């Protein structure tokens, strides 16, 4: 079994980790570790970051050969800061991620990804190899294509359990290996399955929703998830267009920056374009309503919710906004609101 590299942000290119001979291990905020992170940071901070730090403080992690952090938002920056205290012996690399998308940013990020690749090969005492990177990207792209195919199927019809299975596949890619996830994608989704009716088609978006059980709950509450946009769902499995540039790292940078960005990344030529993108995805996936689910204290998303609400209102698409932490318990509290919402959608 390969040695593991920990990471926390969806802007981390998993193919680089695997090319260097490591297994990826995305640290999900799922733990029974006691709440201690507030002592090092602050209690009014993203529950994702706090729970990941709790895991580090409680040593609720597998053996890690190193950690990759990305300064995607203030809370992630704070997590990287606190990691030095929590696990001082871990080798750490912090990548600077530009907030805007333009040619200069892509050049800069490509250099950051190159720095990451070289660091990872060095950590594993491996010789740097562009060929290995291209090979892992090719497998990653196969997975991305499979995920896309499953999402397409979800958007057309309701297949009970498919959203949860898709999440298991994506989680496998995040915490184990691309190859295993690819195998699951090929075998876990039954192509002959017949669609069912009677559920309300809803597009769900937000920052983090990784537990497959959540998607089972959604179905129980009459939701047909037609598509989703979270950093733990399809946004995580970003296909890399290796033909985009002769430089493989620039191809990586443009793929990660330009495809369905997290709220923290913006297209400055179209301020507020996140709202239009959500409207577009909801329409493309044939959803009749949209549910936003964001973590408490997540500034990048919460500050954009008013403009998203406005854009959905303009298109007469009903919108339900939910805020919580990462636990199943917080989802349970939302049951009545979600059921009322799907009832209102009237399918």
């Amino acid at each position, binding site marked *: 079994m390969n040695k593991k590299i920990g990471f926390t942000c969806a802007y981390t290119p998993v193919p680089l980790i695997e090319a260097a001979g490591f297994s990826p291990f995305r640290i999900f905020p799922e733990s029974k570790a006691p709440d201690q992170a507030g002592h090092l940071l602050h209690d009014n901070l*993203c529950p994702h970051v706090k729970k990941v730090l709790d895991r580090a403080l409680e040593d609720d992690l597998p053996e890690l050969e190193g950690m990759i952090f990305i300064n995607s938002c203030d809370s992630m920056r704070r997590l990287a800061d606190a990691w030095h205290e929590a696990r001082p012996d871990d080798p750490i690399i912090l990548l600077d991620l530009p907030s805007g998308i333009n040619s*200069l940013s892509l050049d800069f990020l490509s250099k950051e990804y190159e720095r990451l690749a070289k660091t990872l090969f060095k950590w594993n005492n491996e010789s740097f190899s562009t060929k290995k990177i291209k090979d892992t990207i090719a497998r990653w792209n196969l997975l991305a294509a499979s995920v896309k195919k499953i999402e397409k199927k979800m958007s057309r019809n309701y297949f009970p359990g498919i959203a949860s299975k898709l999440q298991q596949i994506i989680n496998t890619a995040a915490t184990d290996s691309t190859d295993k996830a690819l195998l699951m994608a090929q075998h876990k989704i039954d192509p002959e399955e017949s669609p069912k009716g009677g559920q309300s088609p809803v597009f769900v978006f937000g920052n983090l929703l990784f537990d497959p059980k959540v998607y089972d709950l959604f179905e129980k509450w009459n939701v047909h998830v037609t598509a989703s946009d979270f950093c733990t769902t399809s946004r995580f499995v970003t296909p890399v267009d290796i033909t985009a540039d002769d430089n493989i790292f620039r191809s990586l940078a443009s793929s990660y920056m330009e495809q369905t960005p997290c709220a923290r990344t913006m297209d400055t030529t179209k301020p507020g374009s996140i709202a239009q993108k959500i409207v577009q995805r909801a329409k493309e996936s044939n959803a009749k309503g949209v549910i936003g689910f964001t973590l408490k204290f997540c500034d990048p998303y919460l500050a954009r919710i008013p403009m998203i609400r406005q854009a959905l209102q303009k298109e007469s698409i009903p919108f339900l906004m939910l805020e919580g932490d990462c636990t199943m318990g917080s989802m349970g509290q939302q049951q009545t609101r979600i059921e009322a919402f799907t009832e209102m959608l009237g399918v």
Partner: protein
Amino acid sequence: MMYDHFDNAVKGITDKLNQDPHGINARKKYVLELSRLGKKLYSKDENIAWCGVTAPFDLLGSMGVTSCFVEFVGAMLSSTQTAGYFFEEAEDSGFATDSCAYHRAVMGAVLKNAMPEPDFIIGTSSPCTAGLAIVENFAHQYKKDFFLLNVPQNYTQDAIKYLSAQLEEMVRFVSDHTKRPLSKQKLGIALENFNASSQLLKEIYDLAKTNPSPVDNNILKDFGTVITLLMGTQKGIDICQAFKDELNHRIKTRREHASKEKIRLMWIQNRIQYPFPINEMLEDLGAVIVVDELNDVTWDPMDPDNPFESIAKRMISIPFSMDASERIKHLQGLAGAYRIDGAINPCHWGCRQGTGIRGLISKGMKDINVPVLNLEIDCVDSRNLAKGQIETRVEAFLEMLS
């Protein structure tokens, strides 16, 4: 409404200064200049840019752009006790109540049409992602062009090159909007003014280190952050000179507050913006805030022959742009230089950037034997202020220090 507020402030302060033509009155002169800036922002005759906190105001000024960071307005609304109305507007529109109140106040003002419409927006990724999200909201709301300066966190050659190139692009963006090219001569003057102001700032801060310190708890309040709006101008130099003169005068005349100093404190991050008599309370108990975290010069002089690289280095050098260990090292340096007895960290509710490392700061200060009082307080929104509780904790802290 806002234009009238600034206009009245300009008239009122000018009258007071005229009554005392030989007085130094540094703080009054400083507030007068800020009020003049506010008046210009609301005058509708200027090229206006709303910006992020670390934007290069000297460079923008040299291009004839009147610019300001949006948090300045949030603080002003809070200090004039008019923010409540704007918080409600922002919250009713869906902005989270647990977000930063600097941003909620100013966003409410945008939604209430109480802000001057900018010609364009310059966002900065430092100091915080929340601030960047708000300026994107500005651009969206006003349908104005938006330029973003990504300020890297790592101080490397690549990072400096990247930010320098962005600054050059920003100049092209501004020229396209104002139809005025950058004048190298004007930029050179702005940078010389900036350097002269920086030198005076160093001297002011050195004077504040004197024991007992000539500062009181109000004179240099939020000075380091706000003076950057003026530093590229002759007025900026004049204001800095006035502060230097005032502190020298105080040392010479040993004004009474200096001799009352029993406890020397550091204030971390920003001050409380609304009227709350903490300064007076500290003074009554013999405690003087001799240094604010953001009152420091962390950059080398600007090089007029290499302006963009100089400005880029300056922007990255601000401790809030870099990681927590650099910020803590900076705090420890200030603690030693000012020989402080303790520090107060007002953990501004809703700030993930500054307050987010509350625990790490306490630990860093403990490593050098400096106790820290963490106040859980919203520095801008007074609606949930637990006044009595804060006072008791401050009293207990000072008692412990003395």
